């Protein structure tokens, strides 16, 4: 009797039992890795949104519609636009505590040359910008030319291809890194390109633009606060001293998302804990039942000369092999599934969602694998110890 091959033979000989145990461990590792990665992705998406917004304060025209539009653009991915007079840029620069100001221009395309899906166009001024340029520099080292655009990660176009916006063919100069936010669906252009696009949009008869001169309008002003000044204080001063605009600290804008995120993360953590407790209890019961069912088989092994320790280690070995297979499968399906369906998850949650990088993912998968195997081993250990104490003679006589 080959001791090493015996656990494998036992596993293969009972495919239904093996499959049932594998599925239980699969569920355990799937929920742990899936849940952990989901929580990490939500947190990473929020961090990425905060970093990508870049500014301490965003100033927009003082209408309810502007705020809803801005939140829609940033959080919901609904393209929109709103405008205010360009003179506000200089007024805001004079407010105490303001270090840098840079204007941005928003425009929603009607068609992007492929589908009827509108695309959010965000224009920035390369001379003053401090929020978009650092991101663009990572993907494109040069300055953007006229009708050159940089596309967000989710815009399905290749570099050097063209997108038609308001009848103008714009060249895709670069594609930005993924942020897991709605800003991945936007198109970025410099101020000259955006002014040409606004003029072209005006020609198409968009009501909002028909009375406005593209040279005299901006959509929002991004503000960086000087060191030593409080962001909320500066935003408060702007709201008091500059009329017809509203200043929003970016942190306060994403606090709503942070609340939803903490709620969802809490629910996921509770669910993971519940599944693990349930699966641990279930595994203990299953291993105990399995040992009970195989009592005669084990008694025969004992009669054939197998020691108690050998028998216990065989049961443990069987448990470890099955749980390793289940854990490996659970980790693989979980990681692959999250990767494939991350956009669908982001769409359904309506929250920023950015998967961890490969290193973090591999560490999480390894920890999940080890934990799942250890939990299964602990569950089978009790059954193995109980089994080693049974008298084989008594068991074999029971049948007669």
């Amino acid at each position, binding site marked *: 009797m080959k001791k090493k091959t015996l656990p494998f033979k036992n596993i293969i000989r009972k495919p239904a039992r093996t499959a049932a145990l594998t599925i239980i461990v699969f569920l355990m590792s799937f929920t742990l890795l899936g849940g952990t990665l989901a929580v990490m992705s939500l947190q990473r998406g929020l961090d990425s949104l905060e970093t990508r917004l870049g500014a301490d304060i965003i100033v927009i025209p003082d209408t309810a519609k502007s705020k809803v539009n801005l939140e829609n653009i940033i959080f919901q991915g609904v393209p929109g636009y709103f405008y205010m007079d360009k003179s506000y840029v200089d007024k805001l620069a004079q407010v105490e505590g303001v270090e840098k100001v840079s204007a941005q221009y928003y425009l929603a395309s009607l068609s992007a*040359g492929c*589908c009827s899906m509108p695309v959010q166009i965000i224009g920035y001024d390369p001379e003053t910008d401090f929020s978009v340029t650092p991101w663009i520099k990572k993907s494109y080292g040069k300055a953007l030319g006229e009708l050159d655009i940089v596309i967000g990660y*989710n*815009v*399905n176009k290749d570099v050097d291809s063209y997108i038609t916006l308001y009848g103008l063919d714009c060249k895709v100069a670069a594609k930005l890194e993924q942020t897991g936010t709605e800003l*991945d669906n936007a198109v970025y252009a410099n101020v000259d390109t955006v002014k040409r696009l606004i003029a072209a949009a005006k020609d198409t008869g968009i009501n909002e633009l028909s009375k406005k001169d593209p040279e005299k309008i901006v959509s929002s002003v991004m503000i960086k606060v000087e060191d030593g000044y409080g962001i909320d204080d500066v935003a408060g001063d702007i709201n008091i001293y500059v009329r017809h605009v509203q200043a929003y600290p970016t942190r306060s804008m994403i606090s709503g998302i942070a609340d939803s995120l903490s709620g969802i993360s809490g629910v996921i953590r509770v669910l993971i804990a519940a599944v693990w407790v349930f699966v641990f209890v279930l595994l203990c019961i299953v291993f105990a039942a399995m040992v009970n069912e195989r009592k005669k088989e084990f008694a025969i092994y004992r009669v054939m000369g197998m020691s108690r320790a050998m028998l216990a280690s065989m049961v443990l070995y069987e448990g470890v092999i099955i749980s390793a297979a289940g854990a490996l499968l659970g980790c693989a399906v979980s990681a692959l599934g999250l990767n494939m*369906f991350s*956009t*669908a998850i*982001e769409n359904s949650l309506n929250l920023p969602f950015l998967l961890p990088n490969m290193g973090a993912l591999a560490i999480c998968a390894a920890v999940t694998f080890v934990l799942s195997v250890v939990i299964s081993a602990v569950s089978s250990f009790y059954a193995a110890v109980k089994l080693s104490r049974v008298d084989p003679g008594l068991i074999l006589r029971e049948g007669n």
Partner: protein
Amino acid sequence: MKRNNKFELTLGIIMTVLSVLLFVGILTFFAPCGPKEDGSFMKCHEMGQAVMWTACAMTLFSGVSMFVPGMIKLVCSVVTVLLSAAAAVLPNVMTTCMSEKMQCNAVTKPLVMVIACLVAVVAVAKIAVVLKNRKKNGEA
């Protein structure tokens, strides 16, 4: 019914159910993007049609493979493997919509790949079982 034949039949049923799921799904709950406001189709429409017809053929061949004998059963299973591989590749080689957030890229593409790969795996398993049974029965 012998145990091996039972297993072969089970694999055939799983294969057919998954093919039907792909066929029904691409027409309903994971269909690609709907038509534009002007009634014309989006770019992913052709991909959806190609997957739909491939899934239709997969359903036919996997269904037939359960009822035909010997060599034809093997041929049907091999054709199902090829068709499912094609279905898995189609969303990646055919044009889809511009934004990764749209239904065709976010939902249709991954689901088609997952289901088609599952059909391929089950079909390969079925081929292995059929070959094993033929060898056991002394068929060439």
